[in-house]
């Protein structure tokens, strides 16, 4: 169905493009993580010292574990609110369903910086929250604490990554034939029972996908902690960043980056394995 010349040229093109765009940067990055730094210069010799540094220095470990906890918190908050929202949209009449979904995932089309500053303008010293609370005499004077706290990071990330939870769950729900919920009702189940016994089990792949998405994005995010986390924003993402942008120890930063990628890959892999074992 295709002559050999065009087949080969296509193959070269196709082999080349992912190499340039995907593999080369990845290889460069991974290679970097095995390089050493001498007198502020990167020396391309093989060493494991960067990984050793990560494993041996408790401060890195501490931040790493702390960050994982924060990511988990963000993921769970997104799930707790995202699941009912996705379910609610799914139950809407067909003509309202996609417009409503569009409203919820609209922030995906907004620039990151716009979203971040929107949150700062709410949580900041002169932000809406403080003004609201002062005006209603709940507090005497504006609080700085809303911004530059761990809670601010969690809240901001949860808001920003919320659509990534709703979307996979909703798309999963859309794949459940309405006849299944009707059958459940027909067999005597209440709406709650139908949700627990039919909808929820069948939505697990979407829930898991949403959790993974949010977790990974939260883990890789170094800007939010910087912008709304202040001193508290010392997350692993920022540690990686500071190796590049502040201390210019690229190999160390690269090794941290590889650790991040490996954690994410392990997560995706584990989820892929378990979901393949399921019958759904």
């Amino acid at each position, binding site marked *: 169905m295709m002559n050999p010349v065009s087949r080969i040229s296509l193959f070269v093109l196709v082999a080349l493009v992912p190499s340039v765009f995907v593999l080369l940067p990845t290889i460069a990055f991974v290679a970097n993580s095995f390089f050493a730094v001498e007198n502020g210069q990167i020396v391309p010799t093989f060493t494991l010292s960067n990984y050793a540094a990560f494993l041996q220095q408790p401060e890195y470990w501490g931040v790493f574990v702390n960050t994982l906890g924060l990511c988990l918190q963000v993921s769970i908050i997104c799930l707790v609110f995202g699941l009912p929202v996705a379910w609610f949209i799914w139950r809407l009449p067909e003509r309202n369903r996609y417009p409503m979904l569009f409203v919820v995932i609209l922030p995906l089309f907004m620039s990151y910086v716009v979203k971040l500053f929107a949150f700062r303008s709410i949580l900041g010293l002169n932000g809406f929250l403080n003004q609201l609370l002062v005006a209603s005499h709940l507090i005497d004077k504006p609080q700085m604490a809303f911004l530059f706290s761990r809670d601010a990071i969690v809240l901001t990330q949860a808001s920003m990554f919320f659509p990534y939870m709703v979307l996979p769950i909703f798309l999963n729900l859309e794949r459940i034939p309405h006849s299944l919920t009707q*059958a459940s009702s027909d067999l005597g189940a209440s709406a709650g029972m139908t949700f627990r016994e039919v909808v929820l089990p069948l939505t697990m792949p979407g829930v898991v996908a949403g959790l993974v998405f949010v977790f990974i994005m939260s883990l890789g995010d170094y800007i939010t902690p910087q912008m709304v986390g202040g001193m508290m924003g010392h997350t692993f993402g920022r540690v990686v960043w500071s190796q590049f942008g502040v201390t210019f120890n690229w190999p160390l930063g690269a090794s941290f980056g590889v650790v991040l990628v490996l954690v994410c890959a392990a997560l995706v892999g584990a989820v892929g394995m378990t979901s393949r074992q399921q019958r759904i």
Partner: protein
Amino acid sequence: MDALPEHMNIMAAPEPAVAESLGGQGHLELDQVSKSYGHEHALLPTSFQVRNGEFVTILGPSGSGKTTILRLIGGFTQTSSGRILVDGKDITRLPPNRRPCNTVFQDYALFPHKSAAGNVGYGLMVRKVAKAEALRRVDEALQLVGLETMGQKFPSQLSGGQQQRVALARSLVCQPRVLLLDEPLSALDADMRRQMQQFLKRVQREIQTTFVFVTHDQEEAISLSDRIVVMSKGKVEQIASPYEIYYRPETHFVATFLGDNNLMDGTVRDGGGVDLPIGPVACATDGRGKGEKVYAAIRPERIGLARTIEAGKTGIECSVAEIGFAGAMTTVRVRPNSMPDLSLLVKVTSGRWIEDLTAGASVFATFDPADISVFSRTAP
């Protein structure tokens, strides 16, 4: 001897003991039930009753409103007007989970994450039936549908016919007063479909539950039902036994929708009988007045063909236009010599003399006037 073809073995009758604890005989009544979406009428006001233990089929082409009726009875769609009663109790406003009916869905709607036994037991779990009893009843239901060894399989591991039977068992285990079946066989291939028809009929006979069955397949309706409700464009055309629907149609739609038919324009004669293009025929006119415009219908298999005609009998001299072998029957299209523009469709049991017939041969078409059914040419 092995007179039953092998593939019909699933028809084996269930143990009578099993049948008794499943299902119930409910009486269903639709009283001027209608459904419209805005200005569009999915179902015009419709009334009929289904007797206890009866197998009633709602038959019609797609868009005729047959599925709408079933969804209204099941409670998945709200009526626009009218009342639905089961055993005299008004269920019009009850939600589906509180109605004494269960539905077998067109796509089976089996829960993919539950085993066959889990699916069948769902209604019992929901009703919080004690575990031991639930287990026993699930076993009974699976036994009824011949899947006693398949309880642990998941729907994706079952064939279409087996899934169908799990769906049936899942509904029956809830002991519905009325079982609703929404084109349950349409997803099966021809062979499996024929098996499942006979299986369904047998189950219904055993457990005596009231069945309301929706289909667009005429043969299915004829071979399964005690009575058929023929629908067209949101309206009931005729309600009668399969035999009457087939041989005594009351509308043009019914006459042409169920199988092949020969239809002629006619006019009622003075003193009975009808004037047809082939001449006056002394058929029953049910007291219709002289000059009334009617249709006269005669089924192809009620027309006989003969090479020669016996003394004292009358026949129309025809020439054979076309012969088609169709298995058990051979269809022959003949044209009367007196009016070669017309054609009559004749179906004859395949047999040796008909097999020797060739196009152009001369034959006599004979029929009994009593086999002609007459109905009004103006829509009722």
